[in-house]
């Protein structure tokens, strides 16, 4: 009896990767899932931070997909290695700071390393020709296969019939006739296939699964790089870009203003790293100050803090300023009127 072939499927949590894995499982292949965590993944974070979102049912969609498929899911932290993809993308960025093609090459390459280390035969992705403008095009499909080193061991079951035969087809592990030839941006074929397999309640992210495709987020990241004079970042940096209002009143510092209780609690965890301000005479946000402060800057930051407090219309608001070593002092400040805050201070 021939041995059972083994494949690893890149599982993002979206519908395409769910279907791609299932199509291959239908042909008797042993499939396990792999999910890469870059730090920029939209999955769950803002829901976890913002209190109002906590009322929503929350789930990790990659784990949900694995449960639907009945397969193991290996979640891999690639935060450190991924920095080079974000900072130096060989194929450039999309419309924001999204290095989608390099990202796909990187992830398929990591999956290739994984199958080599674990004795698996091939890799499955949910890519569809024409689905995404940067990474899922007819001309980029061979680039991903080549640059990742996966070559013929990379199978795209949803559009395989539009592509040359791969190793699993040549070896007889997969019947090409039972793969698909989807093409273009329409989601109808995928939705029909989901119905056929009985998948319901699958994730349909409106803006993709990565913050780097988000315009506002990319602007904040570009601001961080520009004002620091370097494109380095750490996990805390990129997490904080997802939270609060960001205002840069001076080139050498910005403030991060919690918008509600959940965000304030999240920002609390950073008070040993950043100078922080909190109103004490009125209810108001926790504010972190990122940068080097010069004369008058604390007063400016305190007045902005007061502006976002319940005392915004009061004559004076008392705030507590806490240094990173835990020492504190109080200030009484006049809240800055809204119309005195230039629009370009908002990052």
């Amino acid at each position, binding site marked *: 009896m021939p041995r059972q072939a083994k494949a690893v499927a890149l599982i993002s949590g979206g519908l395409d990767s769910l279907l791609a894995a299932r199509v291959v499982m239908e042909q008797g292949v042993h499939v396990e899932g792999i999910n890469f965590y870059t730090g920029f993944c939209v999955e769950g974070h803002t829901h976890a931070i913002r209190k109002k979102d906590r009322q929503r049912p929350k789930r990790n969609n990659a784990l949900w997909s694995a449960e639907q498929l009945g397969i*193991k899911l290996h979640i891999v932290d690639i935060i450190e290695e991924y920095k080079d993809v974000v900072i130096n993308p060989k194929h450039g960025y999309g419309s924001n700071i999204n290095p989608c093609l390099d990202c796909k090459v990187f992830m398929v390459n990591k999956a290739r390393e994984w199958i080599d280390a674990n004795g698996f035969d091939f890799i499955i992705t949910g890519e569809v020709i024409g689905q995404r403008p940067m990474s899922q095009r007819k001309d980029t499909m061979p680039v991903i296969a080549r640059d990742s080193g996966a070559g013929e061991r990379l199978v795209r079951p949803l559009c395989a019939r539009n592509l040359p035969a791969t190793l699993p087809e040549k070896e007889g592990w997969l019947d090409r006739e039972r793969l698909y030839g989807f093409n273009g941006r329409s989601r109808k074929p995928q939705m029909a296939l989901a119905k056929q397999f009985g998948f319901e309640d699958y994730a349909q992210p409106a803006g993709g699964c990565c913050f780097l495709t988000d315009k506002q987020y990319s602007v904040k990241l570009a601001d961080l790089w520009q004002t620091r004079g370097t494109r380095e970042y750490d996990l805390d940096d990129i997490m904080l870009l997802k939270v609060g209002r960001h205002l840069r009143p001076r080139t050498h510092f910005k403030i991060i203003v919690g918008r509600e209780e959940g965000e304030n609690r999240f920002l609390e965890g950073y008070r040993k790293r950043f100078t922080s301000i909190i109103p004490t005479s009125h209810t108001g946000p926790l504010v972190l100050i990122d940068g080097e402060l010069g004369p008058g800057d604390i007063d400016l930051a305190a007045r902005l803090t007061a502006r976002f407090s319940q005392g915004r219309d009061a004559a004076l608001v008392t705030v507590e300023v806490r240094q990173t070593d835990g020492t504190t002092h109080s200030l009484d400040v006049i809240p800055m009127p809204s119309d005195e805050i230039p629009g370009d201070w908002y990052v």
Partner: protein
Amino acid sequence: MAAVIVDARNLLCPMPVIRTQDAVVKLQPGDSIRVLCTDPGVLHDIPAWCRVHGHEVCNIEEQEHEITITVRVGQSG
């Protein structure tokens, strides 16, 4: 054997799941692990991860803003 403790406080999902996964790899079936967390997302994600890998969630304690999940390692590792 005393339960291995993983401190995943102040980490957001999926990092607590990844820390749990990395610790479980080094353990034997039947061993236990206690994961300390603050992200309420773990209430869903760690049990879901355990289900797909065949591990057992033995206990979940919630206190103030901290959550402790005890996991017993299953046969499939």
